């Protein structure tokens, strides 16, 4: 097996793909978004539930993801990184993750910040896969915008 393959399909990725965390669509939620990757037809439906107290604590991220191992693993890892944290608190995580994955391998993923997310960094060298990995995060961002719009 060539090296780049083992860097892509790490045990962690396969594990998240097989047993995705927080998968499924749950109530309650404020916003539900549906994103599609037009190149490959992958889809994610994602629901976001924030705390009612104005602190914007992410109470739940539930989702239904149809796609490749990378995109499913990414959704699983993301949900786990987000749930239980404040929106502002996870911003650095999101930003760093996006930067690292978009860097073509120039920026290494910081495990302190993005935890299992480092397992996805093998995709950074494959632009087509970067899109797969980012799709759940784009969906989260869109859901956040909607939720905030809703709450005024």
């Amino acid at each position, binding site marked *: 097996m*060539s090296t780049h393959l083992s860097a*892509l*399909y790490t045990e962690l990725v396969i594990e998240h793909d*097989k047993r995705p965390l927080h998968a499924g669509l749950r109530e309650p939620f404020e916003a539900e978004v549906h994103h599609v990757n037009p190149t*490959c*037809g992958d889809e994610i439906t994602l629901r976001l539930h924030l705390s009612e107290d104005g602190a914007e604590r992410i109470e739940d991220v539930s989702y239904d993801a149809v796609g*490749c*191992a*990378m995109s499913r693993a990414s959704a699983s890892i993301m949900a786990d990184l987000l749930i239980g944290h404040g929106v502002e608190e996870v911003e650095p995580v999101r930003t760093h993750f996006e930067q690292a994955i978009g860097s073509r391998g120039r920026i290494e993923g910081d495990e302190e910040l993005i935890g299992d997310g480092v397992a996805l960094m093998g995709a950074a060298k494959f632009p*087509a896969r970067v899109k797969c990995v980012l799709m759940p995060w784009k969906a989260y961002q869109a859901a956040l915008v909607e939720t905030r719009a809703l709450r005024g």
Partner: protein
Amino acid sequence: MSAATRPFDVDAIRADFPILQRMLDPETPMIYLDGGATSQRPQQVIDAEVAYLTHDHAAVKRGAHRMAGAATDAYEDSRERLAAFLGAPSAQEIVFTKNATEALNLVARSLGDGDTSTPERLRVREGDEILVTEMEHHANLVPWQELARRTGARLRWIPMAEDFTLDLTDLDSLLTERTKVLAFTHQSNVLGTVNPVGRLVEAARAVGALTVLDAAQSAPHMPFDLAALGVDFAALSGHKMLGPTGIGALWGRYELLEAMPPFLTGGSMIETVTMEASTFAEPPARFEAGTPPISQAVGLAAACDYLDALGMEQIAAHEQALTLRAIDGLSGIDGVRIIGPAASPQRTGAVAFGVAGRHPHDVGQVLDSYGIEVRVGHHCAWPLHRRFGLHGTTRASFSVHTTDAEVDALVDGVARTVEFFGALS
């Protein structure tokens, strides 16, 4: 189309394609099995374009000087060359476009743009029907959806049968007196299915409908004779037939082109222009607004020469043998399912397949690590995939330079991919 003038020797052919020397990484030679998406250009095509550029380049049709004459000759000779390759009765029936997509859009737009001076059969309006098929590439579907939306016409389609061919059972009720156009692909870019052009043309003619053939996948891979096919329009792309990107062609019967309103407007397609109004040139100029893809036309003509020298019969036979070899090999792998009709002499060029429990993106990724470049996803034929409950497929497609060894590497690679994921889970 003309008789082959060189032996079909794959090693010699491979030597013509400089990119085949490419290594994906220091250990991995490239096995390019994605000619269905875009083909590679042989040195002969590159050289023809460079020769034109270093000797004859100038603006065409607009100049009186000798360079303009040389360039215009090069461009118009390329039109003649393509016409001969396709078996078109006249070069004046060939319109150069930027790709097959533009060619199909041209027809769809023009049919919606006519006025009272346009013959009825070339005007699609409310109450009319447009018939396509469920296996179309988006390029031969979305322009017709848009035409229907703009005009109020109704879009209908011939459904797929379970065996991956068109289900013609209800053809008679799908094709009615209201049908103005039947647009369909010659060969499916996913399944490899070749559609029964003769039967479809006959049925369309019986109700007076125009026929538009998407020949993007067929013209480069089989003996192709427009006169024999009997359609009214055909579209193709240079970059799928060993020619340049940035060029495609629409062929249309002259008497139809002559009665159609223009699509793109601007320089070189006019007859007279005042500030108030303009009149338009005869075809093909009427449909070639602005500076055309001149050096690309020269490259495309060289690609026709290249293909004809090998012989389209020989190319079809070569690619068919590879297809059958691939089907044979892949069917033997547990968990692999061929998406397409059973092996048959009609079935050339491409093999799509699925690996149980595995997303095509992941399959493609693992194959890529072995150097095998295949395409994954819906291949711009999303409705077709949805019809069969598929999110996507993996597709290998074969070219003049593909070898048996490469097909074997594909089969071996797929087997290893199945193992790879088996070991991981």
